[in-house]
C-alpha cells in the first residue's frame, strides 16, 4: 500500500515546467498558433482543473510527450472522459456514437446498393 502511494506521488510530481518547447512539435498548435491550443496551454488547464473543450483539439499524436524534456503526459483521453461525464461533448462525436449504436457505423443509415464512404488515414 505504501509503495503504491509512493509511486502515485512520484508520477504526479512531474509537473509541466512551462518551458514551451512542445509548441515546436504540436501539429494543432502549429496550425492555430495560439497558446491555448498548445500542449503547454492544455497542461495549464489540467493543473487548474479547467474542463475545456480545447482538450478535443488534439490529434493524440504524442509528439508533445516525446519531445518534452521531462515527458509530461497530458492524459488527453482522461480529460475527454471527464468532459463527457460532465456533459461536454462535441456534436460530431454524439452523432457518430449514435450512428454506431443504431447502424453499426459512424456515418448513419446506408441505403441499399450504396457504399460506405472511404476513410483515409496516414
Amino acid at each position: 500500500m505504501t509503495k503504491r502511494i509512493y509511486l502515485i506521488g512520484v508520477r504526479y510530481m512531474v509537473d509541466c515546467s512551462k518551458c514551451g518547447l512542445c509548441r515546436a512539435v504540436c501539429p494543432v498548435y502549429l496550425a492555430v498558433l495560439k497558446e491555448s491550443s498548445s500542449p503547454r496551454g492544455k497542461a495549464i488547464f489540467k493543473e487548474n482543473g479547467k474542463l475545456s473543450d480545447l482538450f478535443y483539439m488534439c490529434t493524440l499524436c504524442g509528439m508533445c510527450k516525446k519531445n518534452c524534456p521531462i515527458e509530461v503526459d497530458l492524459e488527453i483521453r482522461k480529460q475527454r472522459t471527464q468532459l463527457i461525464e460532465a456533459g461536454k461533448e462535441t456534436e460530431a462525436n454524439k452523432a457518430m456514437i449514435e450512428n454506431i449504436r443504431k447502424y453499426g457505423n459512424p456515418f448513419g443509415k446506408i441505403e441499399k446498393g450504396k457504399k460506405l464512404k472511404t476513410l483515409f488515414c496516414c
Partner: protein
Amino acid sequence: MTFLNKYIDEVSESEEDKMAYATDASGVIGKVRRVICPKNLDEVRKAVIYAKRNKMDLVPRGAGTGLVGGAVPNDSIVLDVSRMNKILEIDKIGKIVTVEPGVVLDDLNSVLGELFFPIVPGSHRACTIGGMIATNAAGMMALKYGTTCDWIEELEVVDDTYRVKKIKEIKDFCGREGTTGIIVKAKLRVTIRPEKTSLNLFSFQSITPMLEMVNELKVRADVIAIEYLDKITSRISGLGEKFHLIVEYENDSGKINEEKEKEKVWKIREALSSQLISRKLEVAEDPWIPDEGLGQFLYWLAENKIPAFGHIGFGVIHPHFRRNDMNIEMMFNIVKKLNGKVSGEHGIGVVKRNFISDEEKVRFMRLKQIYDKENIFNRGKIYG
C-alpha cells in the same frame, strides 16, 4: 463591435486564453484582460492605438519561453506575435535576413542552408526572434558569437506614436523586454555554419582543475561552446556525481562526431532547466560572473548544494532554487561582491526588478521618455 474587433481578426477574452496567457516559462502568474494575435503590422498599430487611447498596458509576447516573467501580464492586453512569422527576405550574398518577430529560431536556421543565425538559447526549438531580441538572448555559443544584439542590422518598431520607425540604436530595443515598443520587423546578420562540429565530454572530481581547463579552452579559436554541469545536475542527467564540461568544436577535434551522439549530449543539456523546475526548483537564475570570481562562486554554490549548470565559457551560470529560498538574495550579494551582473541573459522582467542598478534605472527612464511617455508598453517590467 468594438474598435479592436473591427480592425483585428483575432481578439479574445475567453477564459481559456486568459488562463493560457497568464504565465510564461518563469511560472510567474499574472492577469490577462484580452489576448490579441495580430497577423500583420497594421493590426499591431491598431492594438497600440487602442492601448494608448484606453491607457491600457500592452504586453508583447513571443513563445513565452522567458524565465523572468517578461511576458507575464498585469491586467494587460497580451499581444502574441506568433502569427507574424514570415521570413521576408534572405540575402545569401550579403548574409542578411529580414524576418517578422514571430519567426521561430530553428525554422529560420532550417531554411538558411550553409548560413545560420548563431545565437542558440536552450529554447531554440520554440523561441521567436522577437523574444530573442527583446531579451538580448545569448545561449550556448555565446563564447564565440556573443549575444543577439551583436547580430542585428536594423529593427522596425511601433512606438507610442503608432508610427513604424526604423531603428539603428539597436540597444534601445534589444534587451529592453518590450518596454520601449513593439518590434515588427528585424534585419539580422547571419554567418557561415561550421561545416563540421564535434564534442567532448570531460568529467572532474573538483572545481579547480575544471576551471583550469575552461581557461585553456576559452583561448582556442575552434571552441564554440563550453557548458558546465555541477555534481547535482550531472547526477540528474545520468552522468554520475562529478563536475562535467561539454565542449563543442567547429571541427572534428572532439571525440563525439556522430550526429546522433551529439544530439544525445545536447538533449541532456537542454533538458536540465525543465528537469530542475519539475523538481520544484522553479527559480532559474542567470548571473554573469567575471573570470576572476568564477571559482569562488562555483565553490559557494557547491557548498550550499545549489544545483547549477551554465555557459561557463561565457561566464553565465544557471543556479536553480526553490521559491523564496533565502540563498537567492545571498547569491545576489555574492554576485555584486564579485563584480558580476545579476542577469547575464534572461533579462530582468518582474523577477529581478529589485536588483537593477541606479545607472540602469536612469537609462530605463530616459528610454521611456523617448519611446513610451505614457507607459503603455509592458508596464512594470525591468523598472517602474
